[in-house]
């Protein structure tokens, strides 16, 4: 290896190839900086268009707030499934009042089924079970179902607000907004 490298004739120093002009250090750095700035600007611009793409003009999703009829529509002791399909909410009327349970299993997000005869919510994916109150009691689910904010609107209808969630394990079910006394 050494021999061959020695055999290569050394390049004559201090004589740039013809046609190439000398660029000063300052000039090089300013061009270099300009190139980087414009590259970064172009990239940011392209990325911002990609980001814009993530926010569509129209979303075909149900609103997070909805009116769930009048309190009299709900029978005491019954888990009402009329809003399950559209909004993902079970309305449960207890003797004391009304609460809105989320239909998302707290284990891995499947939709449990309400089994009337066994009086429990049972998830088909891994067998988690919840009482009517939403408390988990069997299977792998680590925490109870979440409740949504319920309130009475001015026209006397029940207003369910899915943007506010109440988790039992954080003690949030004591919050008066998580329960509508009737």
């Amino acid at each position, binding site marked *: 290896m050494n021999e061959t490298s020695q055999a290569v004739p050394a390049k004559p120093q201090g004589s740039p190839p013809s046609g190439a002009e000398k660029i000063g250090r300052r000039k090089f750095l300013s061009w270099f900086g300009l190139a980087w700035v414009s590259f970064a600007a172009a990239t940011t611009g392209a990325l911002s268009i990609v980001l814009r793409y993530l926010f569509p003009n129209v979303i075909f999703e149900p609103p997070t707030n909805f009116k769930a009829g009048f309190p009299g529509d709900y029978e005491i002791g019954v888990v009402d499934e009329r809003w399950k399909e559209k909004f993902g909410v079970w309305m449960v009327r207890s003797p004391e009042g009304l609460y809105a349970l989320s239909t998302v299993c707290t*284990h891995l997000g499947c939709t449990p089924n309400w089994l009337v005869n066994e009086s429990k919510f049972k998830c088909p994916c*891994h*067998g988690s079970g919840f009482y009517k109150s939403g408390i988990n009691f069997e299977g*792998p689910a*680590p925490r109870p179902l979440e409740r949504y904010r319920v309130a009475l609107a001015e026209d006397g209808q029940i207003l369910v607000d899915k943007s506010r969630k109440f988790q039992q394990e954080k003690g949030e079910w004591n919050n008066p907004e998580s329960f509508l006394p009737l």
Partner: protein
Amino acid sequence: MIELFKELVDAVSSPVTIFTGAVVVFLLFVTFPRQAASKGGGLTLLFLVLAFFGVGLTDKHFRSIVSAPDNVPIVGMIFIFGYFTWYAMRKAVENDRRMEKGEPTVEQAETNDKVLVFPYLIFIEFVVALAYAVGLVLWSLFLKAPLEEPANPTVSPNPSKAPWYFLGLQEMLVYFDPWIAGVLLPTLIILGLCAIPYIDRDPGNSGFYCYQKRRLGIQVYLFGFWVLWILLIVVGTFLRGPNWNFFGPFERWDVHKVVPLVNVNLSDLLFIKWLGWGLPKEWYLREAPGILLIFTYLILPPAVLAKTVLKGLCKKLEPVRYSILMFLLLVMLSLPIKMYLRWAFNLKYLVAIPEFFFNI
């Protein structure tokens, strides 16, 4: 007679009996490899499985489950993997016998020279690929992929089953928190498999089948693959019905079957049932016993074994590789341990901190 057999099978079938039975079969297989790998042993096993399927196919429910297009490959898998395990063990036993006598192994006797990949291996692979392609075409012609209605996020099919190769994971999810069974354990399985050549760097017995000199590796592999992966897939496919309840092989899948599965955490058992103090308010006090238990489980056995039974192994592998090996083995064993704890004590989580989505 057949009815009695079916009722008997359904009566004894439960996750506990099936899992324990599989562990017993595994132990017999690795303790008596010579008998298990003999022609008689293999034929007996094949006959038993075939007889079970033969009797089972007279049952309408069993037939409908086993012949569902999704499940046919799993039936095939039982036979294919059974055959290959038996065949590999047979080769290993033969080589063990030769090595005992001081003879060269089959592979060494054949040739000690290197063989070129092309054309020898490539040719075989090409023929196999052709046969495989024909098989896939026939399969797709005869077993239709089910086309169902459009997906609806508010309706989960009952039972909801993962693709067959994930059914082992789905079964694990019954016993573990999602982030452990769904993220941590699969990651450790993959990393652990990658780590094998770095942990076992002994080139002494490579290049041929043998059992006696590679017992630890082969036993760990067979246990992890057969009992903790294939068996869980088979259970998940054939024996898990609506609401992920367990059903015997001949039991009708009743959506309204009620199985009491009330689970309690270790902290509930300890502070409420055994000590009667009530749960401490702070999570770190409440879960301290569980956390302590986990640390003891991960640290004590490797330390004790390194000083006693596995002294030689520890010296051979050096501390770092030894600790990694022990960690991987203990994590693997934690799955059956957790399953038995669930079955015996209805134990849900050893450490349950729902405040941070952290449960073990």
